[in-house]
């Protein structure tokens, strides 16, 4: 979706707070919102792409006006409601109408889950559409759904720098339509291809892009 989350190349966002001692959390509720988000994810009712879409899929004023962990909180609350983990009535009253079907993981299991992770890499059963060194054009992907093609590279030409292998395709995975296995590449774009002649001639931007986003460059 062409949302406020897709920030690459925007102007006017102000200076960066570069203080190396700035804490990771600025309030206790941020810690709790972080932990609740991870913990509810352990129930397996949604995946990382669903979760990203829940964060980005909101009015730009809401997105830009919310702090980072506010976005996490709003998204996880919506996901829990949408997937039936809890009901709006329970949220309104603060009282459970029913208990969870399966117990949540205890701290030991949580530690094991975190150490293992969830790789989006899939068995290499699909041939790559492009070889390293190939020139590719990024398709003009325009969709209200989830996608990981930043606007700033659509319609631009780059070169396949490396083939990461076969990965889950987020555009379908976010919407419960399967993993659609395909190769994901790091594509190298020159700064001048993306930003014009004023960009430094030597600089380059590498973007991870899937087969479905690309076509051979003319």
């Amino acid at each position, binding site marked *: 979706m062409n949302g406020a989350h897709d920030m690459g190349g925007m102007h006017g966002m102000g200076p*960066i707070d570069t203080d190396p001692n700035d804490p990771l959390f600025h*309030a206790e509720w941020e810690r709790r919102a972080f932990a609740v988000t991870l913990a509810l994810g352990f129930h397996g009712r949604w995946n990382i792409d669903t979760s990203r879409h829940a964060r980005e899929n909101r009015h730009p004023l809401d997105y830009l006006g919310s702090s980072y962990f506010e976005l996490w909180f709003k998204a996880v609350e919506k996901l829990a409601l949408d997937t039936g983990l809890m009901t709006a009535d329970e949220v309104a009253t603060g009282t459970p109408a029913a208990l969870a079907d399966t117990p949540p993981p205890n701290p030991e299991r949580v530690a094991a889950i975190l150490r293992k992770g969830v790789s989006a890499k899939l068995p290499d059963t699909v041939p790559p559409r492009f070889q390293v060194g190939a020139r590719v054009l990024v398709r003009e992907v325009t969709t209200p759904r989830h996608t990981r093609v930043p606007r*700033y590279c659509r319609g631009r030409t780059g070169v396949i720098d490396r083939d990461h292998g076969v990965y889950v395709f987020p555009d379908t995975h976010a919407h419960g339509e399967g993993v659609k296995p395909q190769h994901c590449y790091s594509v190298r774009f020159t700064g001048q291809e993306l930003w014009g002649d004023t960009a430094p001639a030597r600089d380059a931007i590498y973007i991870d892009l899937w087969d479905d986003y690309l076509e051979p460059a003319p």
Partner: protein
Amino acid sequence: MSGHDHHGDHDHDHDHDHGASGHAHAAPASPIAQRVKALEALLVAKKLVDPASLDALIDTYEHKVGPRNGARVVARAWTDPDYKRRLLEDATAAIAEFGFTGRQGEDMVVVENTPTVHNLVVCTLCSCYPWPVLGLPPVWYKSAPYRSRAVLDPRGVLAEFGTDVSDEVEVRVWDSTAELRYLVLPERPPGTEGMAEDELADLVNRDSMIGVTRAKSPAKPMAMESTP
């Protein structure tokens, strides 16, 4: 976007402590703090979350998993050429040799800074970041100023961090739009010949592994025998 630079249209609630000063306010909890608290209470009562697990999650990423991990990887690569080769060829496996695995670092890529190339990592679409080696991202990494400009004006961003990169050096920006997680292998600072891996790791901070700064130089000159 950032957790603390509250925008004009956003209530500047004062339930939070302002960083290192840590002063608490007596004011009532902000609406968002109240909502989070209410939701957590409901989820605990519903047995959807284990409060001990929530505490463990916070403790893990606030105190246990952090850039010290990445610094050990970098220091090993600086001192062991064979390890460095493995790290650049298959970063996931080489990093797993330290036991650094899992969530948000399942598939790793390491990019090397050299005298002719300077690398910088960003996630313009959200906040993708290699948790097992760097912990949770700093607030600035997730913020609109960094996400918008790292790809557009990387040299300007580097200058904001006090990092001057010569025009002769190629700047490479890695936008983590997929599930690969990037770690920058900074250049080993001059004057560190003969330093042990542990000492070298102390020179490697978080920002140098995102690529916005360089590794630190040793605080004092090396022992006389290592200089000509």
